């Protein structure tokens, strides 16, 4: 799926016991960095990507030749200022941008497909923790990410309570809701219903279950936007035509837009990875790891938290973000919270939303000054 050049890889020698019971070792973690690590090694920010993201946070992604997924947020003089901070991001295990995943080969040189072990958010962060040793970083300045990235942020600070000074989960949840699982299942069903999926044993780009994956992406994409945002952008506008055509072609702009989103996604993403990563999200329930008490997940950390949600995000709504705030307050943790007004839905954290970018920048820069 990926072109190997341009991808930096750390081979993790240390065995990692996964939640499913299997142990993996000598596996690759693909990563990218931006900015430079200072001599005190106290300016590193570990960014976690969302479901379909990758390690190429900002600038031009050398594999897809498109802008990185967090280009509005990360870069010189931006909210996460790479003149100041050293940003590290790695592709999650189970992913398809160079980290150990279902498109890799097993010891018999056969592509894993669905023989790849089922991974969890916990497995993802435990794998990524190896990057700290790799860079000789004792303590990160911050960890951040939106959506599934936010889930990794929460899991990371729970697993490694002393390894980050500040913690910024964005537009996320501590537990995947029934609605979240339902949408993910819809995507998985679309993929597995594609006759090219072949129980996960497709072998090349030509024969991959692209149609199923495109439908999965289209359905998911709707959940990333708000009703108001969609209505304002598309309404009932027609696609390059004067009138309805009385057929099943894309009459409406929204149809054409979704079809396009589906088709470009297929070019850059592996269908089996989509199955694995959505499964990891569905299995995420941080409170359950602590007998139903979410506060216990954070009891050992002294880190400073800043939680951000968006008014029009109905996928990971404000209340689910506030539940994390409440869990932190109930143990007297240092936690700030703001809900940003935006019509751009869950995707707000990826877009040019000035109130969000300002809040993030101010929190980071002020916290760093106090360092």
């Amino acid at each position, binding site marked *: 799926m990926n072109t190997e050049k341009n991808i930096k890889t750390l081979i993790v020698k240390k065995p990692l016991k996964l939640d499913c019971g299997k142990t993996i070792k000598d596996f690759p973690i693909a990563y990218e960095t931006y900015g430079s690590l200072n001599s005190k090694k106290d300016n590193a920010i570990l960014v976690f990507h969302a479901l379909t993201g990758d390690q190429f946070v900002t600038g031009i992604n050398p594999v897809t030749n498109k802008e990185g997924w967090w280009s509005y947020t990360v870069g010189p003089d931006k909210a996460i200022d790479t003149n100041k901070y050293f940003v590290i991001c790695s592709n999650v295990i189970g992913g398809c941008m160079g980290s150990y995943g279902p498109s890799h080969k097993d010891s018999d040189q056969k592509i894993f497909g669905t023989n790849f072990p089922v991974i969890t958010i916990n497995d993802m962060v435990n794998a990524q923790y190896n990057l700290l040793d790799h860079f000789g970083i004792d303590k990160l300045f911050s960890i951040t990410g939106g959506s599934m990235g936010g889930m990794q942020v929460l899991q990371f600070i729970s697993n490694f309570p002393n390894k980050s000074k500040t913690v910024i989960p964005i537009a996320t949840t501590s537990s995947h809701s029934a609605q979240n699982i339902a949408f993910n299942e819809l995507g998985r069903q679309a993929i597995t219903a594609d006759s090219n999926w072949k129980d996960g044993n497709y072998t090349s780009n030509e024969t991959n279950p692209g149609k199923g994956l495109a439908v999965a992406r289209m359905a998911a994409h709707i959940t990333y936007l708000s009703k108001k945002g969609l209505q304002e952008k598309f309404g009932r506008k027609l696609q390059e035509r004067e009138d309805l055509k009385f057929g099943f072609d894309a009459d409406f702009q929204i149809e054409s837009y979704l079809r396009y989103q589906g088709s470009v996604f297929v070019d850059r993403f592996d269908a089996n990875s989509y199955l694995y990563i959505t499964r990891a999200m569905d299995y995420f329930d941080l409170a359950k790891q602590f007998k139903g008490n979410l506060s216990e997940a954070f009891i050992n950390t002294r880190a400073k938290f*800043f939680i951000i949600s968006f008014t029009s995000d109905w996928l990971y709504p404000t209340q689910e973000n506030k539940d994390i*705030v409440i869990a932190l307050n*109930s143990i*007297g943790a240092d936690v*700030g919270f703001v*809900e940003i*007004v935006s019509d751009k839905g869950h995707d707000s954290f990826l877009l040019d939303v000035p109130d969000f970018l300002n809040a993030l920048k101010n929190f980071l820069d002020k916290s760093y000054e106090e360092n």
Partner: protein
Amino acid sequence: MKNEFQVIADLIEKDKKVLDVGCADGTLMKFLKKNKNINIRGLEISKEKVQECIAKGLTVIEGNAEKDLKQFPDKSFDYVVLSQTLQAFLNPELVLDELLRVGKKAIVTIPNFGYWKVRFHLLFKGTMPITKTLPDEWYNTPNLHMCTIKDFFHFVKSKDIKIFKSLALNNLNTSIISESNLGVKNLFADLGIFLIEK
């Protein structure tokens, strides 16, 4: 910084943990953090004000005191501060109870409706009083439950709330309110500051 905040700050010892309820732009928080090494948190309903606090490096939670105080455990702060906001809640009694549950002590300030200028305004002009501490018109004021220093004094007594200190503020003058001078202070102070505990 306004005199009220200076008086509040003087009531708080160094190195304490304080929650500022309705912290606005964080002026008091910043002062306490800088000058008294206070571990300070804020709760603020306005998104714009929350942003201002973040820009000052302050830890603030966007929220509503009537709904969001309940997430804090009992006596989790040494002091909880509520400046000139009690009268703006739908249920001030409930908020006061919550302040005293969350804080070991609470500092509550009250714009005094018994202040002579307020009384004069209503008596002679016949319109709703507008003063420095009560700047809004009747139709756009956030205040729902105005009270006087005397009202508040009697109210806390009736609830068996202990008053450690009660101060009357008139411009830059601060004086102690007691049972014996209550009538006078109620006439000449435009702000009452109460340090209380339950």
